[in-house]
């Protein structure tokens, strides 16, 4: 074994799990022997940590929670059965409550039965740890995993299609509950389904939910933390470990391991809706009972270094044992393009005295300033903010900040990934968000979505 190979082997074991004493001694000897080995070692260690810390972002940009990234509405296909409205033939299917694990998505063997569909587009088919170009993989087999490079179509003999969004990862599986049924598993990314009436079941499974359809058009986006479903036509039945729900045309839902929250698509924003939307930096709603306040930014053009800020706050106090989530989607510019700050927070009611200042001083908040996320809380207006968590710098782009309050515990999430958990420091809270930027850069600091959602009890 060559010294280089020996070093690589040692390094591979070291990166897999801590070495034993003999391994550590051998590694130390290698490192002492040669400065080049040390440089090499440090670069590989750094690379390893970049991969560990950023794997999700580096590998699947589509994993970010972003409803706008769902595929555009799919084209309407001719329906079997003529003028009938096939989605009205929807019938509820009894479904098994299963969280789909990655094991279930593993490629199976070459002897697996054919999967009756054709794939086209820039797609890689993974089969038994091998990869095939889309065209070479025909016919598809149960157990294959489709990995869409840009976008791809899966066409079924009955005219139905499933369109895979860029980066989508879709497993083709036999449906154990229906011998002739079709089942796909969405591990990551998004798909749009346009399916005529199915004589047998058609199901889409994600890590959080199983979606049963007969004939409908709908879209799904899945991440490790949640799934989002938007129904364009017909209805689908959702079943997760938390609960089950029937979703109709025009509705969207977000499913996590513990809750299903739903809202109307394209509905005029109303403050008593479970989900509200901001557009172009302005609250697209009128204050109503239990509603919100929006503090205006300083008017008119100001000096170059003036802070511009806005804040949005629910003005009805909620008990600390309420089950709610506040989230906002920020479009973050490059960190070196001005200084900006976006945050979601939970504040005590007395912080309302600061309403005109656009920032309640005592609060627990998840914030991003110049790309660096932190969780911190301040107990009184004059107390120092106690930082509880600091993350790595986030790349520019759309980022979802979310605080979930349940059982007097707050969970902070960034792009659907829980980053911190702790007790809520106040007896009653008002949720809100704030965004400011220092007008030194050219890129705007935008927030284009905010939601205050009741969480269903587990």
């Amino acid at each position, binding site marked *: 074994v060559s010294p280089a190979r020996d070093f690589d082997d040692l390094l*591979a074991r070291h990166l897999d799990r801590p070495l034993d004493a003999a391994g550590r001694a051998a590694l130390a000897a290698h490192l002492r022997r040669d400065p080049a080995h040390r440089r090499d070692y440090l670069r590989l260690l750094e690379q390893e940590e970049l991969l560990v810390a950023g794997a999700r972002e580096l590998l699947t940009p589509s994993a970010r929670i972003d409803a706008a990234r769902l595929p555009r509405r799919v084209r309407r296909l001719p329906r079997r059965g003529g003028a009938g409205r096939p989605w009205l033939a929807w019938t509820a299917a009894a479904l098994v409550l299963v969280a789909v694990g990655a094991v279930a998505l593993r490629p199976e063997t070459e002897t697996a039965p054919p999967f009756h569909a054709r794939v086209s587009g820039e797609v890689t088919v993974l089969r038994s740890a091998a*990869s095939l170009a889309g065209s070479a993989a025909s016919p598809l087999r149960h157990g294959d995993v489709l990995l869409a490079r840009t976008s791809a179509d899966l066409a079924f003999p009955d005219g139905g299609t499933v369109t895979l969004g860029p980066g989508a990862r879709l497993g083709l599986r036999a449906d154990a509950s229906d011998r002739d049924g079709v089942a796909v598993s969405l591990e990551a990314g998004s798909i749009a389904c346009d399916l005529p009436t199915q004589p047998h079941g058609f199901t889409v499974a994600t890590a959080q939910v199983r979606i049963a359809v007969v004939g409908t058009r709908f879209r799904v986006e899945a991440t490790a933390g949640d799934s989002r479903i938007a129904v364009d036509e017909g209805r689908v039945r959702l079943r997760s470990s938390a609960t089950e729900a029937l979703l109709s045309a025009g509705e969207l839902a977000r499913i996590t391991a513990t809750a299903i929250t739903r809202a109307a698509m394209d509905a005029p924003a109303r403050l008593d809706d479970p989900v509200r939307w901001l557009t172009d930096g302005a609250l697209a709603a009128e204050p109503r009972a239990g509603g919100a306040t929006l503090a205006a930014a*300083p008017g008119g053009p100001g000096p170059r270094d003036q802070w511009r800020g806005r804040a949005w706050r629910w003005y009805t106090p909620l008990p600390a044992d309420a089950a709610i989530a506040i989230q906002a989607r920020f479009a973050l510019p490059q960190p070196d393009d001005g200084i900006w700050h976006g945050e979601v927070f939970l504040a005590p009611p007395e912080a309302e005295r600061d309403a*005109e*200042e*656009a920032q309640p001083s005592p609060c627990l908040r998840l914030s991003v300033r110049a790309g660096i996320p932190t969780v911190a809380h301040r107990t009184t207006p004059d107390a120092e903010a*106690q930082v509880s968590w*600091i993350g790595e710098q986030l790349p520019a782009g759309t980022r979802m900040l979310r605080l979930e309050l349940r059982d007097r515990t707050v969970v902070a999430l960034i792009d659907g990934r829980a980053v911190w958990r702790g007790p809520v420091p106040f007896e009653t809270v008002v949720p809100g968000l704030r965004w400011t930027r220092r007008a030194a850069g050219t890129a705007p600091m935008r927030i284009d979505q905010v939601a205050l959602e009741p969480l269903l009890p587990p």
Partner: protein
Amino acid sequence: LEVAPAGVGRAPPGTGRKPGQVLAGRGLISAGDAVPTDPRDAVTAQLVPALPMLRAWLRHLGADRDQIEEAVQDTAVWCCAHAQEFEPGSSFGAWTRAVARYRLLAMWRDRGRADHRLDDDLVEAIPQAEWDAAMDGVDGRREALARCLEGIPATARRLVELTYRDGCDAATVARRLASSVNAIYLALSKLRRRLRTCVERRMGAT
């Protein structure tokens, strides 16, 4: 870390602030002031690009993946809370590595790890100056790595996903891919070398 919009309305009663002034960090700023200079901001700004090498340091000390996560958070929060203790002009990397080393040892001791000492021979095999030198240019390498990952074949991508995104150890990856642990070690070594070469090439091209 605490920054609020300046010149927005009146100050809350009892804060001693004037209209147009708001808290920023632990001081006051007004419209037109320079960027706040809270020492915690300065520490945070230096800490974030230092995190990959801080993780690498903890890995070098013998921490596993979960311990690295916890010790890094512990170190970051501690450094932020004790920002005023950092002497400007001294080695920031050395300061954070010393803190991380202490926090890791405390964690091992608190959890009753049988051997909660460091292997001094391995720790001292790399001079601290070389750790400091290795910290430069991490942002460029991160960007280059992202580009390099786009070009790897599907089988290698699957390996990366299982190892880094899903956090599987080599034995689990071997089971999932119906392979042997040694074969996975070899495949990962080749992949790391390939990525490193790609990153170096991209960095050299810029």
